[in-house]
């Protein structure tokens, strides 16, 4: 972008820059050698090329497509905002967003609380710490598709291990994946199982930056553990917590592979997430509507993450 339009060598830079008024003659740092001016552009070039070719171009293409009725072949007709109007008044679109919202509620608050609790405990113990850390990250490194398949088998209503365990303690079997009421919590459990370990690591790294003297001072002043957690740990962790919050919110609203493999969006449409609803347009070759849906989803995801980023900034 800028690499092309402006010749970098003629640009005036802010920091170790050419200052015309500074009279001191020929100090070494006054003008930067051309190579040093060009270097950063060369270094970011691979990213910029990939970005232009595989993000910007497709995005513009999607934008154009979203105003047509194209079905993948033949002529495309310009239909203005019809796709958007259709989506915004269809119950399917809103229920897919609603499903993602409910999943967010089931997952993210519980996950953050759990991650803080685990990280604080891990930080307070010495023995077995390494073992726990590994155990918590194991789910994170397992392939999602493999986990999703294991979930199908574990939570099967008639033959699954989970219902077998319930049966062993005298409880009736649950239709985990085949009733609309249970399908979402079962998917949420899969997501929690898979990603909480990573959030624990983020929180743990935040904890390690807290000055330990603070706790000593607090306990000398007679503050108990809970009090220390509330007045020192949580406020100082805010950065890590917000980072986790944004990251996990993005992940939940992009959730696709889990319902695609485990439930195919059912029963009925109870687990058709925003991402899966969008994908369904593609499988029906309803590309114009799919493109419009893409843009609406981008707007929703960006709005949500910008909101969180705003909150993060406001704290500083």
């Amino acid at each position: 972008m800028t690499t092309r339009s402006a010749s970098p060598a003629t640009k005036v830079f802010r920091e170790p820059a050419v200052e015309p008024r500074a009279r001191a003659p020929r100090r070494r740092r006054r003008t930067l050698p051309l190579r040093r001016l060009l270097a950063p552009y060369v270094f970011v070039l691979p990213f910029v090329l990939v970005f232009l070719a595989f993000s910007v171009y497709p995005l513009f293409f999607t934008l154009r497509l979203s105003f047509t009725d194209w079905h993948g072949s033949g002529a495309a007709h310009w239909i203005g905002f019809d796709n958007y109007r259709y989506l915004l008044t269809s119950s399917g679109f809103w229920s897919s967003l609603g499903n993602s919202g409910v999943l967010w509620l089931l997952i993210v608050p519980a996950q953050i609380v759990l991650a803080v609790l685990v990280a604080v405990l891990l930080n307070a113990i010495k023995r077995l710490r390494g073992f726990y850390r590994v155990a918590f990250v194991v789910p994170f490194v397992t392939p999602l598709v493999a986990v999703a398949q294991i979930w199908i088998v574990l939570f099967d209503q008639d033959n699954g291990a989970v219902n077998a365990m319930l049966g062993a303690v005298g409880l009736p079997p649950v239709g985990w994946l085949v009733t609309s009421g249970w399908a979402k919590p079962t998917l949420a459990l899969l997501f929690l199982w898979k990603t909480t370990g990573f959030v624990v690591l983020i929180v743990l790294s935040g904890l390690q930056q807290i000055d330990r003297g603070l706790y000593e001072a607090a306990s000398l002043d007679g503050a108990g553990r809970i009090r220390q957690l509330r007045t020192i740990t949580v406020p100082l962790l805010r950065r890590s917590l917000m980072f986790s919050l944004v990251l996990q919110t993005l992940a939940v609203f992009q959730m696709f592979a889990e319902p695609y493999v485990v439930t195919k969006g059912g029963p009925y449409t109870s687990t058709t997430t925003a991402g899966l609803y969008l994908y369904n347009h593609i499988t029906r070759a309803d590309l114009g509507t799919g493109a419009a849906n893409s843009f609406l989803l981008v707007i929703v995801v960006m709005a949500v993450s910008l909101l969180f980023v705003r909150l993060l900034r406001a704290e500083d």
Partner: protein
Amino acid sequence: MTTLGVRQRKPRPLLGSHAFLLVLTVALLAPVVWAILSSFKPAGEIIRNPLGFDPATFTLANFRGMFQDVPIGSGFLNTGIVLVAKGAITMFCAPLAAYAFAKYRFAGRNLIFGAVLLTLMLPTIVLVIPLLLEMKELGWVNTYQALILPGSVDAFAIFWMRQVIAAVPDELLDAARVDGCGEFGIFWRVVVPAIRPGLAGLGVLTIMNIYNDFVWPVVAASSSRMATLQVVLSTLAQNISGNRVGADYATVTGELLAAASIALVPLLILFIVLQKHFINGILAGSVKG
């Protein structure tokens, strides 16, 4: 640990902590252990008695059947090829770009970094349609290029490495510059050695992401010849959740668990061998307060 030092006289909260962590650990490891053990049981047993395991009935039948039914060997091969090529691009280009963002001031820096953040926020699924059409135009559908190039300079890797490289002291770079080191030389000989723990973490994360990638491969490499491991796996799951008619449920379940286990194992081994680097890398490259 400080809390430990202060309250050493009261070991009871620690006991509670261990109990809590142990219960969680069991819950986290159980599905994986269960799947691996069950994949060695006769298919009928997995369904009849999901909780028991009798070593006398140990069998490889599920694995044999799975190898016959799905092209898991070529799945591994395709994933391997993509892993090497895409991984090399990310591991070289992302830290290099991150170095530019962290240590140079240049016109357009914020704009280009904005592009990194934008890429980070875009759901993959959103770009799937137009990317697929782009691949069609290029004649790249069902090719390795299609699997390797899109997303090859990973935005999260740039974002993360920028934090890591920002912590490298400027004096180190200036000293190298005075010694006559070129700009790339500084990156290669000063920055890279200084951020080795972070790079090791990034390496594990990159391998994991590429190995586990699913959304794009399932669209771009739909032919069974090009299918990556995860795509091959998902076709098995479709047999079970979609059309149970025709396939014997127990057999499919057995093969499913065999396939899942075989896909789990390489990453588990890699992670256990490199876990120190991975965990320390993430801890080192975290968000600064």
